[in-house]
């Protein structure tokens, strides 16, 4: 009872049963979601604090409790989007998968997630490039080692057939180009190319073509099944 009373006195009278740190966490996440949604619709440059707070259903004061400015909120949105895609990629394959298969499954899951939530794609490609081009390096550092690890044997780094950094940049540009059509669901059409670019650096061209065809075929089967 003592605890309960302390909530009420701390001003959290509307939701007295929600611990304040959880309420604050969910507020912060709502703000980040608001940022991502607004970027998807009108890009970062076109997004105002008003857009974000109205989507998040919070006040401007609350916004500024969590973030210093729009840019700080955007940095949090980038971290959130990168984290989401990393989770999606990591859970898409199992340790038993050969590396090429694992990379194909991870790439397929990531493209699916981007198509389902186009705000992720907008934040990570067009807007990241506009706000801070060097941020690309930040998430390249997060993704390339994961890819490399799939082909590592006994802790030895695999030899690269093509430059993984270039492949990453290409994938990003292709996604950017596709969302520029204004039809984010068409991101799925890029699956063969994204799989190729994911597999080719460490798996080589031949394997990448094979995996790309496999991904294209399963996508066609998926469309036919719908």
């Amino acid at each position: 009872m003592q605890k309960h009373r302390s909530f009420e006195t701390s001003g959290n009278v509307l939701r007295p049963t929600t611990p304040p740190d959880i309420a604050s966490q969910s507020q912060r996440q709502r703000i980040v979601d608001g940022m991502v949604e607004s970027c998807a619709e009108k890009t970062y440059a076109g997004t105002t604090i008003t857009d974000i707070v109205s989507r998040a259903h919070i006040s401007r004061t609350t916004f500024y409790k969590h973030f210093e400015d729009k840019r700080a909120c955007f940095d949090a949105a980038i971290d959130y989007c990168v984290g989401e895609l990393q989770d999606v990629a990591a859970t898409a394959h199992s340790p038993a998968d050969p590396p090429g298969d694992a990379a194909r499954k991870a790439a397929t899951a990531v493209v699916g997630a981007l198509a389902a939530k186009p705000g992720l794609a907008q934040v990570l490609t067009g807007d990241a490039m506009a706000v801070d081009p060097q941020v690309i390096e930040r998430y390249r550092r997060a993704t390339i080692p994961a890819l490399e690890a799939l082909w590592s044997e006994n802790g030895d780094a695999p030899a690269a057939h093509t430059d993984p950094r270039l492949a990453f940049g290409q994938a990003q540009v292709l996604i950017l180009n596709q969302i520029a059509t204004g039809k984010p669901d068409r991101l799925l059409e890029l699956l063969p190319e994204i799989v190729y670019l994911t597999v080719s650096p460490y798996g080589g061209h031949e394997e990448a073509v094979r995996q790309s065809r496999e991904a294209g075929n399963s996508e066609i089967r998926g469309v036919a099944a719908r």
Partner: protein
Amino acid sequence: MTDNPEDLRQWRLPRGRHGLPRELVERSQRERLLAAVVRVTVANGYEKTTVGDILGEAGVGRESFYELFDDKLDCMLAAHKILADDLEERVRVDYLGEGPWPERVRHSLATTLDWFAADPEAARFFLVELSTVGPAFRATFKSEYSRFTALLDEGLEEDGPDPELSGAAQMAVGAIVARIYEEVVLGRAAELRGLLPELTYGFLVPFVGEEDARGEQERARD
């Protein structure tokens, strides 16, 4: 007066270095405004740039500006289009010229790298500033991407390889954009020519496989 890409391009180069005659440099207010928007947005960033900044740089009056352009964005997109037209024209000459396809690819890549390296300010305007204009960026990016993919396909028709992947042309254009973009962002546009071997390789692999691409990469080192 028409927009002559050659003149605009020279105008954008540092004055004095090329000793351009004054009458050529000041041929039209439109050209001066287009050249000014490139310099001013690179210096200030698109958001902070005002029409007044462009006028000051160009030495042109406000009335004349609004006779020629709707607003700052319109002026910026017009300059962007002239640059894209100029680049395409130059690449077209090499790419659809004489010689086997991989060699023509190598030559047009060299031309592309040189084009960006010749004027790092314009390179930054062309690749980086455009992405900061908001929603208008999407349509422009899309249409310019398509035109270079179409050019690539055009040259493949004659004697190019039949790629194993239908999206090879899209990936190849993506390789050029991604790689040059990165160097420009890092302020290394002037040294772009050094990328020719690796870019030739990265461009060609999806079309011809690693071995043949390696051969052309070696020739690009010479």
